[in-house]
Structures are given as C-alpha cells and as structure tokens.
C-alpha cells in the first residue's frame, strides 16, 4: 500500500472525525443549556429526573453509552440495525453525553451570577427572557469559556471512541491500516492529526475568549 493511499484513507477518517466533533458541538451546546434549566427547575420531578440523567451520563463510560445507543433499537424494539445508523448513533451518544457536561458548566456559570444583576434588570422592567438572554447569558458565557475550552479539547480526543461501533473515523482507520501493514506510521499520523486539531481548537477558543475581553 502506497503512502498516498494511506494518506487518502486517513483523510477520509479525518473528515468523519471533524464531522463528529462539529455536529456534537452543534447539538450539545444548546441542549446543555436546556438541560441546565431542567437541573435548576423549581419543579422537583423535572429537577430529579435531570439530576439522574446527568449522573448517569457522567458516571458511566462514554464507550458504554455509545454501544447502548447503537444496540438499543435492536434489543429494545427488535429493529435491524442499518450501517447508516452507526454514524447517527455516534452523534446521538456524543451529543447527549456532552450536553450533560455542558449543562453543569452552564449551571455553575448561571448560579455564580450576582443576584444584583437580576434585581437591577427587574427594576428596569426587563422581562424574564430579556433578562436571561440580554443581561445574564453574555456574562455567563464569558465566565464559562475556559471550562468549555477544556471540554471541547476532550471532545476532540473522545471522537476516537466511535471506533467501538466501527465508525470509520480517523482512529479506526489508522488502527486498521496499522494492523494490516504492521506499521506504526498510521498511528503516528493519527496522533499528529489529533494534536494539530486540538491546537486549532485552542487557537479558536483563545480568539473567542479575547472577543469577550471588552468587559470585566
């Protein structure tokens, strides 16, 4: 197998890894906000359910969750699992797992906001929604950016877990080629890929953090 074929195949995997990464962020960031509302809900039942959900998501391996989501249709409903479902299962599992982590980050940020901001907004007549989206959320985002950066960097590395249900992302392919060619080289390339990927993520996040430096 020539180097160009290896690189071409790894390139395919790379695209899948980036897709997993982007789609997970796309779904888990807003979903996390919704879950954090549930976690802080005045309704004990909603709060309790969300608490258990977060505990499970954080308390069990993501690899296990991936398998559970992938095999669930078959074991629960007897539906035959199609190959296209693999990728969908990865996105579902990653999104609901990361949403749980993001929810706790949002909650920490929201609860750290001084009550005075809410009171000032109330006196000025802002509605509840205006208060949250105009006054509170921008400040919360600034506060939680460092934690979000950490999670995002973990996510880059976690995309390799999709291997357990044979989704052809970067790591899966690197490992296959490595076994077939009895060569370390594909794995080294994979390592470099994750490193560069994370370097870019850190760079982007730093840029975003800078954007939020206009206030204190």
């Amino acid at each position, binding site marked *: 197998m020539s180097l160009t074929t290896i690189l071409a195949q790894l390139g395919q995997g790379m695209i899948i890894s980036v897709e997993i990464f982007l789609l997970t962020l796309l779904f888990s960031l807003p979903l996390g906000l919704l879950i954090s509302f549930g976690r802080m809900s005045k309704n004990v039942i909603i709060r309790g359910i969300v608490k258990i959900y977060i505990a499970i998501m954080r308390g069990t391996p993501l690899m296990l969750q991936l398998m559970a989501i992938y095999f669930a249709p078959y074991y629960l409903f007897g539906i035959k699992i199609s190959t296209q479902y693999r990728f969908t299962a990865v996105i579902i599992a990653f999104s609901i797992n990361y949403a749980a982590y993001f929810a706790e980050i949002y909650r920490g940020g929201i609860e750290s906001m001084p009550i005075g901001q809410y009171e*000032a907004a109330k006196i000025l007549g802002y509605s509840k929604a205006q208060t949250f989206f105009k006054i509170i959320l921008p400040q919360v985002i600034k506060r939680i950016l460092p934690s979000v950066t950490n999670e995002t960097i973990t996510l880059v590395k976690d995309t390799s877990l999709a291997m357990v249900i044979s989704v052809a992302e970067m790591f899966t392919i690197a490992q296959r080629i490595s076994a077939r060619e009895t060569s370390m080289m594909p794995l080294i390339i994979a390592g470099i890929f994750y490193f560069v990927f994370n370097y870019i993520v850190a760079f982007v996040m730093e840029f975003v953090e800078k954007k939020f430096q206009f206030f204190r």
Partner: protein
Amino acid sequence: MNLVEMKHVRKQFGGLSVLKDISISVKKGEVVSIIGPSGSGKSTLLRCATLLETMDGGELAYNGEKVAWEENGKMCLATQKESKRISRNFGLVFQSFHLFPHFNVLKNVMDAPVSVDKVPKEEAKKRAMELLKQLGLEEKAYNYPYQLSGGQQQRVSIARALALQPKVLYFDEPTSALDPELTSEVLKVIKDLAKQHMTMIIVTHEMKFAREVSDRIIFMEDGVIVEEGSPEQLFCSSNVRVQEFIGKLEE
C-alpha cells in the same frame, strides 16, 4: 393624592421581624431621607416598596393604585401585569450600582427604554446622551463600567434609572460603597435632582447632605419609625436615640 403610600408595612425573615409597622406617605416633588442604624430595616423597606420583596402585611400604593394590600388578614397582590405597569412609577439606585458590565455606559442608559418601553433607538440615544451630559458623563458614553471610578459608575446608574422617567426614585445608601472623595460628586447629582423637584426617597448616612436636601427625615430603628419631621425638627430632637445617632455620625 400621595405618590407613594405605605401603610402598616410588615416584613419578616424566618421569624425575625424586620419591619414591624411602617407607614410612610410621600407627595409629588418631596424629598424624604431615611436614616437609622444598620440592621434597622431600611433596605428591606426600599426592597418592599420596589417589589423586590413581598411584604407580609400592610398596604402599598402608587398614585392611589394598590400593588399590595391586606384583605381579612390575608395579603393580596396586584396581578403580574398590573404590578409591572405600576412599577413604571419608580426607579431604584443600589448601593453597589449593579451596572451591566457588558454594556457600555450609553447602552446601560438607553437599553431599558429601547427594550422595555420600545422607545425608538435614535430618540432613546438622544435622551440618554442628554442625561449623561447633565450628569457630567458625556465623555464616558462609550466606556465600559469597569473603566469608571465608583462615583462615575453610581452616576451612570442614576442616569440609567432616570432614563425610564420614573415618578419617584429610591436610593439605598448611594454613596456607602464609595471612597469619601468620590461621595460629593454623587451627592451633588442628587441635590441637582432635588432642585428639579424630582421625588426621592433616600436612605443615607450622610447627615449633612440629608439635612440640606430633605423636606422630611425619617429615623428608623428596629423596624419601626422612631421619629419623623423636618430636618430642623430631627436635628433638634429630644429623643435620646435620635440625638445619639445623629451625634455619632456627625463627628
């Protein structure tokens, strides 16, 4: 009719009676100062009057429109919509400003008129700039709160409250968070407002200021009004507690 009418207001916090029976009425154009030792319930009173706290008993009305009242010993509150409408009557200036840190000075002042009162942007901006000029802050319009001194921040928060054109403005120790040398610039702004006959209810520890600016001073202690009257009456009070308190602060 009185602009502000509080009758027999009571408030407890977990068994601790903070306001025991407070009645205050304020006419349009009046400036009333509330003084008293810390812990006597002054902030709680302003928080009840501005609906940040729900009172446990008594009555609160603006321009004769009741927001909270008692019926057969039970507290009744105006509907949320009514409360919100009646709330347009008052503004509140906090001890620690509570400016929005991610808005510049201009936006802090003009955002509520735009977002809440739906004033057209251009008009709101024009009015905000006029207010800032009046309070000596026009050069700071595009600065962020963290770039201002405490005195400037407090003046911005006064401008922010005024931008909604309240009928009565409450102040809760507006200068207590400020270094002494920054106090006077804020007090001057309040004095100017008094000259323009703005109705104000001011909790303060600045005795000289209270004496100058107030039509009436209320001395509060342990959740009750101990004495109430013109500045002259209060400063010549025969009440020992009032004498002690004023004497202590004037030193």
